[in-house]
């Protein structure tokens, strides 16, 4: 498992926010870069790893406040897998803007009126980690999946976004690896290491669906040493290469295979079977 690069690209003119982001970048070891306009941001995003986090003022360059944040929607149309947080002052009449931002794919909102400290902004940025994969999985996983399984999967998406391993997942959940393995078994999930490998595959599949991403970028952003390692993993887990997956819809194929793997893991676990059959 390779270290996942963590660039933070900022298109925002608010001096206080910029100062706070500098402090947070130092604290969370993020590679901070400020940009001045949407054109430059598109360029930067294109050359940055897919694991980049972007903080924008959705109304930057707009003629007036209160209009639809079209530039954010355009950015996310071009790079659908990008993690974008919007920083705006939320005041009376902002409801429609917030909802539009959510609909366009923004995963987090920083309220510049109330959340104007490094602690609050840092917490909001932290919450974006793995959010996109978690939301996609929430929609793709069967509704009958247990709460226990969903809790573990939610934590696993965050760990994968940080480039963590099985022991990091146990640490994140504040238990020993043995307890975590027991929980995974009880939730009919694969063992922690295998679960994280699946999460990486799913994260990679989401990025493969994004036409603006190269394979080496996807590999680096998901913690693979090289694109050959990613190709090998895709073949091992999904039986297909990236080109084939991209044509078929990589995330849909990967999530379907993951659900199938869960069903198989559940029926082959003797301990689980004994418990269910009483």
């Amino acid at each position: 498992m390779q270290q996942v690069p963590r660039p933070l690209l900022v298109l925002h003119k608010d001096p206080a926010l910029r100062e706070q982001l500098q402090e947070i970048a130092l604290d969370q070891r993020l590679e901070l870069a400020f940009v001045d306009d949407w054109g430059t941001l598109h360029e930067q995003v294109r050359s940055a790893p897919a694991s980049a986090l972007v903080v924008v003022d959705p109304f930057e360059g707009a003629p007036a406040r209160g209009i639809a944040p079209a530039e954010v929607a355009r950015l996310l149309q071009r790079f659908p897998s990008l993690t974008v947080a919007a920083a705006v002052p939320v005041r009376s009449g902002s409801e429609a803007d917030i909802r539009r931002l959510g609909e366009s794919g923004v995963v987090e909102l920083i309220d510049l009126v109330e959340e104007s400290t490094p602690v609050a902004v840092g917490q909001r940025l932290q919450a974006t980690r793995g959010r996109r994969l978690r939301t996609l999985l929430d929609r793709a996983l069967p509704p009958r999946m247990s709460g226990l399984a969903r809790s573990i999967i939610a934590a696993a998406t965050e760990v994968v976004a940080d480039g963590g391993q099985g022991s990091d997942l146990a640490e994140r959940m504040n238990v020993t690896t043995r307890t975590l393995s027991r929980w995974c078994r009880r939730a009919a999930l694969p063992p922690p290491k295998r679960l994280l490998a699946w999460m990486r595959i799913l994260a990679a599949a989401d990025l493969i669906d994004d036409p603006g991403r190269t394979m080496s970028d996807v590999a680096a952003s998901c913690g693979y040493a090289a694109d050959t390692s990613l190709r090998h993993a895709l073949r091992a887990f999904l039986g297909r290469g990236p080109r084939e997956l991209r044509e078929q819809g990589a995330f849909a194929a990967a999530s379907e295979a993951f659900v199938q793997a869960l069903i198989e893991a559940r029926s082959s676990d003797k301990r689980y079977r004994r418990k269910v059959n009483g």
Partner: protein
Amino acid sequence: MNRRRQPQRTPPPVTSGSEALEGDIVLQELEGDLSLCLWKTARTVRLWAELPPELQSRAFSPPSYAERISQIGRLELDADLREALETAAEVLRGGAGRAAAVSDACGRISRWAEAQGSTGTALELAQAAALSQGRQAALGLEVARIAAERGEIARAESWYRQAIFTARQTRDWTSFATAFMGQGKLHFRRGDATAARTSFLRALRISRRHSLGQLAAEACHRILEVAILARRASEVDRYARAALQAYRGNREGLIGLARTLALYLVERGFHAEARQLFQLIPEDAGKPADRLSRVSALAQAGAALGDVELYGATMETLRALLETPELDGSTASWIGLLRAAAWAADSAAAETLEPRARAAAEQLGDSDALEEIAWLADPGAEPPDLKIRRASASLRSLVTDLEEALERSARPG
């Protein structure tokens, strides 16, 4: 042998659904500045609650509090909601030593939202309340209850587990038993009779150990329902008696028990005993769906026993019930009514009921039920087999005892 006590752990509860932005649902359910204020409240309390205590006082800057209070001041609200919003806003000035007050305020806002029918908002605020007072199992139970009612099963399940964990630690036995009961209901809803029975048995054991009479009664009642679903005849008698004994003078509980038992009797073909029980259940007891199940079972009993008067009276009641807006009866109730109409050769009733039954079955995608409905509604088809059986002596004595208990509970004083 000394057994070292290991600390118990549980995974964190599920705190979000598939919404795009945290708290999005609040803005979808409500409108205007009030929705914005509630959205901000839920988000800031949650952010504050999820921070380590040493960072909480540095989470927000002092002007934010003044800004929020002035925003609340501009809203037209009733005094209690205003006070609750102002208390919850205290997290913006550090909230030191105010976790209990903030949590209580969020709970009040949640109840207000639920009363307005905004269950998503109620869930967000109940969750904020539970997160800011992590050691209160009852708050977790509230989140689980609202999530279950909204059909967010995974979130509900994870909060019930959290409540079990906290209640065990804090020795809050009422919440402990209630959480197992809630967990059992979720399993039952999913059709997992084995897991449901295990949870209800845990709830029963805890309630008996800690003398929680009404919870024990409810647990027995739920185990009875599982036994009916799993066709465990011996347990039906055992747990029906246990529930009857534990409910004592709880009339509402006894009516529910009578309904459960009577539906079982109808299903088994013990129509005479079912009629006896159903006639004791007041016509207007329960929700419209409960009233429909009563009418359905009585119509079957009337048609099966050739009791023309009972069948006619039941159909009269049904006509009034069908006027109820958004009557969402179960497929089983509609099929029961169609079966009764087929036995009574009442083709006019079958014609009226068929579209309702079909709609209920289609909503669930229940193809077996759709097939049965088509057959029952077909005027040229043979009517379904009519089995009239006589209940065992033990079951008959149970019905009599329940009848007496219901009569006693109806007496004033």
